[in-house]
């Protein structure tokens, strides 16, 4: 699947006069898996929310799927899945009802079959008809992943998806993300867990104080070197602004 999925030029966002993201240039090609690292407050979540059209840029331009965001982003959102540490699931509805609702909102055809398949795929068959309120954090996050995938997005954005998950649930989520990537889905993930990030992604970018300070590809054996690069880059950027 050739082409560019995300292209930002001088992208910036301010909140009440404070810059959360500054002049960011980033290009993500179709089928890539990119991990976004950075200390707390670096602007990682702001970046994903801008790309998901949940926020409007203060400066710069954003193109998704090789098109500018012209209609408020509705057409682009049809091709985007978003998974956060918040599930976006209605606690009083069951996983099946939640997925059917989102499937309707995204205009999914044959939604009953699609929802049943997803529920089985994320291992929620035994909990499909219980209110989300009664599910554990791990089960809820599995359901959230199904929600993000219900319309078969071409770009899946994940904001700290491993937060609060136990080892088994994290491994399950990693396996599902690897499968989605193998099927051609472009992934963009923020996480503090470098090991988990590199189980799925081969490209990393580092943000600090709203600026992109490092962008490169990582081999499987270079995790320790990357950790050192990360610390050195972040400390250098912090020292330069001190």
């Amino acid at each position, binding site marked *: 699947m050739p082409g560019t999925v995300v292209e930002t030029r001088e992208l910036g966002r301010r909140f009440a006069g404070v810059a959360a993201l500054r002049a960011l240039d980033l290009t993500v090609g179709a089928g890539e898996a990119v991990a976004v690292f950075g200390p707390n407050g670096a602007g990682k979540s702001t970046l994903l929310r801008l790309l998901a059209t949940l926020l409007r840029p203060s400066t710069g331009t954003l193109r998704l799927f090789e098109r500018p965001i012209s209609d*408020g982003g509705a057409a682009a959102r049809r091709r985007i899945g978003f998974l956060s540490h918040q599930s976006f699931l209605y606690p009083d509805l069951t996983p099946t009802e939640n997925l059917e609702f989102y499937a309707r909102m995204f205009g999914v055809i044959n939604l009953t079959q699609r929802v049943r398949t997803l529920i089985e795929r994320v291992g929620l068959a035994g909990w499909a008809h219980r209110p989300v309120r009664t599910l554990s954090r791990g089960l809820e996050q599995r359901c959230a992943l199904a929600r993000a995938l219900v319309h078969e997005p071409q770009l899946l954005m994940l904001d700290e998806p491993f937060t609060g998950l136990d080892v088994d649930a994290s491994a399950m989520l990693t396996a599902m993300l690897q499968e989605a990537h193998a099927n051609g889905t472009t992934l963009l993930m923020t996480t503090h867990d470098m090991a988990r990030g590199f189980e799925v992604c081969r490209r990393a970018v580092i943000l600090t104080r709203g600026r992109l300070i490092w962008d490169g590809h990582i081999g499987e054996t270079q995790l320790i070197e990357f950790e050192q690069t990360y610390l050195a880059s972040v400390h250098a950027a912090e020292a330069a602004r001190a």
Partner: protein
Amino acid sequence: MMLALIRKDLQIEFRTKETLAALLLLGLLTLVVLSFAFDPTSELRVEAAPGALWVAVIFAGVLGLNRSFLAERENECLQGLLLCPVDRGSIYLAKAVGNFLFMMLAQLVIVPIFIFFFNLPVSFGLAGVFLCLALGLLGFAAVGTLFAAISVRTRAREVMLPLLLLPLTVPIFIAGVKVTAPLLAGKPLGDVAPWLNMMVGFDVIFLVVGWLVFEYAVEE
């Protein structure tokens, strides 16, 4: 997609029954208390009845509107909605229609009890009163849905919503009382046409305004 959103709101409400129960309880309590303020045989009771009905509608409506975005707040579901491939104005319209339906459902119980407690003749134009309530509540839902979306993200949302909402909806309630009073006295709808037209105008204006500005109301 708007239907999917309305269906979801109804699904949650029929499971939890929180909003309808609150609307009914507060509406009925208000009517009961006000009905005891007047002598059952007095003419004043009939004259005060339209005001009492609309006070009950306002109190119950504010409570219902306050709850309308709470379900979207849990687990940040509003963000999930905003990620859907629909324009934000459509989300507003669906929420406004949902709020209107809840308030009208409550009136199906409140109005018969209002007739009973205020000892009103059942011969008056009940259809006209429901038309008037529908027009009033549509305008109330149009303004209230927009302000509920704004106030749900504030800390003092229970106070903020009535402070924002009530001053702006005074015209529709004045029109509501002015229409209800002649209808209760058995006069035809034609006699209150100017007030009804005003209510229709209010509804159209605020539905359009809400549809246009909702995107900015939910934006961070």
